[in-house]
């Protein structure tokens, strides 16, 4: 039973033929909580997100989630649309006219450092900007749960750091229930209220580390570094 926009996964099991992707996975995310799931490559993180988003169903176990939207690993922006039309895609799907959709996206563009790039084409945007547009597109779907699948995995280290700060600020202003999947432990410690460590396949949650640190957090602060050590320890 999800409470006002949370996520509750109970003993999820999912196999693809002989390969068991998820086994006995339980996880709960409270409304407006940011939970990061870290784990080695191929441990079933993306499968878990797709189950939460209703893109596939579990073989057994229970998934109870408020409506969730997926932000895919690659930015997957549409090259034939301008930046703002990309951000407003979900509004267009919901039946809004183009001008109304743009109007609704406009304030977010100004607010989140994309002012002046409304009519830019996708290839004119930097990698970081593309991720911003992709995140706004996710946000504008209006769904209470955001499933972010390694959102900054394709960025260089410097841009990734900037984008983590940016995402932290954005979530402080537009709080949502967030399930963030990443293999970057530092990213998890900087952004999340709670870090869940997933085992190698078959994936399940082995450790949960609450992050009781004030925001905004610096990746280099001793408390974050210490937490990172604990998470990495759990991954071994």
């Amino acid at each position, binding site marked *: 039973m999800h409470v006002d926009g949370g996520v509750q996964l109970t003993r999820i099991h999912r196999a693809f033929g002989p390969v068991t992707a998820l086994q006995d996975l339980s996880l709960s995310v409270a409304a407006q909580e940011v939970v990061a799931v870290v784990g080695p490559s191929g441990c079933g993180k993306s499968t878990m997100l*797709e189950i939460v*988003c*209703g*893109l596939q169903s579990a073989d057994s176990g229970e998934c109870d989630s408020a409506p*969730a*939207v*997926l*932000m*895919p*690993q*690659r930015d*997957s922006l*549409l*090259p*034939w649309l301008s930046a703002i039309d990309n951000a407003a*895609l*979900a509004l*267009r*799907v*919901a039946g809004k006219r183009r001008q109304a959709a743009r109007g609704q996206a406009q304030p977010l563009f100004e607010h989140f450092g994309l002012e002046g790039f409304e009519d830019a*084409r*996708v*290839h004119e945007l930097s990698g970081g900007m593309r991720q911003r547009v992709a995140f706004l597109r996710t946000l504008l*779907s209006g*769904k209470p749960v955001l*499933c972010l699948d390694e959102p900054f995995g394709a960025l260089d280290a410097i841009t990734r750091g900037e984008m983590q700060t940016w995402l932290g600020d954005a979530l402080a202003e537009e709080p949502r229930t967030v399930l963030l999947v990443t293999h970057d432990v530092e990213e998890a410690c900087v952004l999340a209220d709670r870090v869940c460590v997933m085992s190698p396949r078959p994936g399940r949650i082995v450790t949960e580390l609450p992050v009781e640190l004030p925001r905004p957090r610096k990746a280099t602060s001793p408390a974050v570094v210490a937490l990172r050590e604990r998470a990495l320890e759990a991954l071994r």
Partner: protein
Amino acid sequence: MIAPLVLLALFVGAWELYTRVSSVDAFILPAPHEVAQSLYDDRSLLLSNLSVTAQEVGLGVLLALVIGGLLAFALHLWPTLRRAAYPLLVSSQAVPFVILAPLLVFWFGFSVSAKLAIVVIVCFFPVVVTTLDALRAVDPELLKLMRTFDASRWQTLRMVEAPAALPAALSGAKIAVAVAVIGAVFAEYTGSEKGLGHLLLTSTPQLETARAWAATVVLALFAVSLFSALGLAERALVPWTRKDRP
């Protein structure tokens, strides 16, 4: 733009030189200036025949685009249909249209529909194949995203898949244009009263070789301009695929 013109000038020059040096008969190989003369003298004849062939080719390619595009979408939407029909489509291309053309003319008569049918038959296949491949190659992440936006099948098709496949459909049409001209000329060979193919066929036995060459030049120019028109349409319709952008 200059380089191909220089090459063309060299080629025409060499041809002119050859006809003078070898003193080959004009009804076997006319010199370029004789072809040019015929282009001028027979201009009204060439133009009226061109308009017939141009209609066959233009309408044929357009029809092939529409039929091929719709067919690709249908095959994409219904995998069962794709599995059933795709092998048949491929094997339909193994039947040489040279064999089919006389039968179609027999069926449709000397009307324009026989020519159209032949042009469409040779043209729709590249359109179907390129469009269908592009539809199937759409980023699966995008399709997942659209599903989490609660998009209907039709919305996903309209907002994501169709624009993603448009460049490929136009590439298919470019390939089609090249074969469309061959198709139309052959269709006219098989049975017709007008058109550049018909003019070619009748000029040769009348020893009007220069006129036959003139008709060939007109056909080539027509094919090239149709190809360029599609290039322009590409720039206007799918600007995001341009490689030379800054």
